């Protein structure tokens, strides 16, 4: 079967620094893929290339028949690619509802003149967007906060709001940048559950960057290990765990700690 996402020989160089070097991998539809590696390995940079925030120096990204590199960042959501951020990027002065509505954006646009004159078509589209956002907020258990301004909410809830906003784009491919950062082991376990449910119930393919090894090993079918911008290993959790290069570069200390 053709993979949903296919990255080929992707490189990104900042002046002399090779942040991403010749990385290739495939992501099968319906899978959960983890990107791991030590700090500065280029994981977030790679994710930023996939979400078109950064322009790779060379290489190709093929997603569901689209050449992603031909699309500007704001036109990924409409083909089903959305993301969350390592350090929350919320619309701080907006309510939870407004934040999530922005996620619904591309599917409910109407022409600006009809919005300015409050024509029925534009009003209908806006109401439908709010309706859908409310529903999603209910599904994610955020109902109590729906009209709260997000900047005042606790960190954990803010992370859920960001996830809700990403889901509001009805993604086929969801990119998560350190979703478990700042979570305790119990919260992280729950997050793993949520991600699996997203895949099962909404058929979403997930690519995540994560440092929490228990989470990554627990939910990913495939793990890609980056070291200094290059892919050193790729495979199911067991194989990656046993790969000597990986142990040397990264997992060694981790494993020792666990034991």
């Amino acid at each position, binding site marked *: 079967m053709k993979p949903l996402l296919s990255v080929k020989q992707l490189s990104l160089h900042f002046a002399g620094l090779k942040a991403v070097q010749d990385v290739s991998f495939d992501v099968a539809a319906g899978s959960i893929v983890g990107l791991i590696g030590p700090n500065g390995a280029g994981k977030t940079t790679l994710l930023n290339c996939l979400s078109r925030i950064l322009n790779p120096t060379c290489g190709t990204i093929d997603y569901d028949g689209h050449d992603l590199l031909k699309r500007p960042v704001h036109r990924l*959501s409409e083909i089903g690619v959305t993301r969350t951020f390592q350090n929350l*990027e919320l619309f701080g002065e*907006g309510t939870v509802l407004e934040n999530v509505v922005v996620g619904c954006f591309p599917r409910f646009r109407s022409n600006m003149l009809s*919005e300015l004159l*409050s024509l029925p078509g534009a009003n209908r589209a*806006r109401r439908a967007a709010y309706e859908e956002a409310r529903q999603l907020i209910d599904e994610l258990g955020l109902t109590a906060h729906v009209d709260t301004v997000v900047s005042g909410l606790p960190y954990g809830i803010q992370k859920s709001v960001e996830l809700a906003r990403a889901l509001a784009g009805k993604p086929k491919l969801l990119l998560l940048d350190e979703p478990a950062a700042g979570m305790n082991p119990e919260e992280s376990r729950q997050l793993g559950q949520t991600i699996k449910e997203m895949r099962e119930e909404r058929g979403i393919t997930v690519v995540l960057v994560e440092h929490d090894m228990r989470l990554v090993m627990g939910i990913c079918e495939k793990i890609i290990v980056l070291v200094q911008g290059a892919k050193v290993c790729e495979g199911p959790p067991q194989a990656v765990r046993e790969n000597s290069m990986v142990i040397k570069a990264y997992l060694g200390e981790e494993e020792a700690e666990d034991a």
Partner: protein
Amino acid sequence: MKSVRKDRLLAAVAMGVALVAPAFVGPYGHYVLAIILIYGLVALSLNIVTGVGGQISIGHAGFWAIGAYTCAILVTKVGLPFLLCVALGGAVAAVFGLIVALPALRVQGHYLAIATLGLALVVQQVLYEWTSLTGGRGGMFVPRPQILGYEFLDDGPYYYVILAITVFFTWVTVNYRKSLTGLGLGALRMSAIAAQCSGVGRTYHIITAFVLSAFMTGVSGALYGHLIGQLSTDSFTLTVSLSFLTMVVVGGLNSVAGALLGGVFLAYAPELMRELKDAQMIVYGGTLVLFMHFLPGGLASIPERILDLARARR
């Protein structure tokens, strides 16, 4: 979103006041009332670009001048009907709004402020030098407005024309602020990256905001020219641009009511500061800083502030 009913009540009261106010004041009062609305219209336009979009513009005196001169020239030299000329004044200003939006896509903050400032200065200079069209240093005479053969000789009746147009654009601004496009522009201000990843196109939103804003300011300028009866480039100086910015901050950047309050402020401020001449700039600048620091929500946030204080006391 909060308390739609309270907003409606407030709007109804404001409308009532606006309708009966001329009955209680003389001819000069009519002029001041008209000026309040004309400034209010500019404040509404800045509410879109600066309030929602977070883009600082010191160039709005440029759009204002373009609207005023376009309308006056079309009325006097081409002889088109007044209301059509007002709309065309807005349209020409909107074209310049598009031109200013282009640097706004590339630069932010201080740099954008300087770019828009540049526009205001260039426009003023061109109007000053283009004597054959604008009368240059001598300025130009603008006739009283005429609609369907009726000539508005007094400011009282003309005030109602301006009121109708201001009410229309207040409605448009309210619609914009609650529309998905307006929401998208606000999202871009708060996190450009996240907004774009959610599908909000930066180019489209910033350009349309500048075009809409410039259009409204152009219309305001057109109405202004016909109110004061003569145009000279002195009416469109840097002080004017700065006073516009002060007006929206004093009124309240993030509310429509604040924009209209800003109009009231700006209509009365020059009366109080007439003796100061060029030193007015300092007062505007000082007021801007003080409000940003101590009352960032502007006059419109005072009731809320008092409520908060009262709650804290309890």
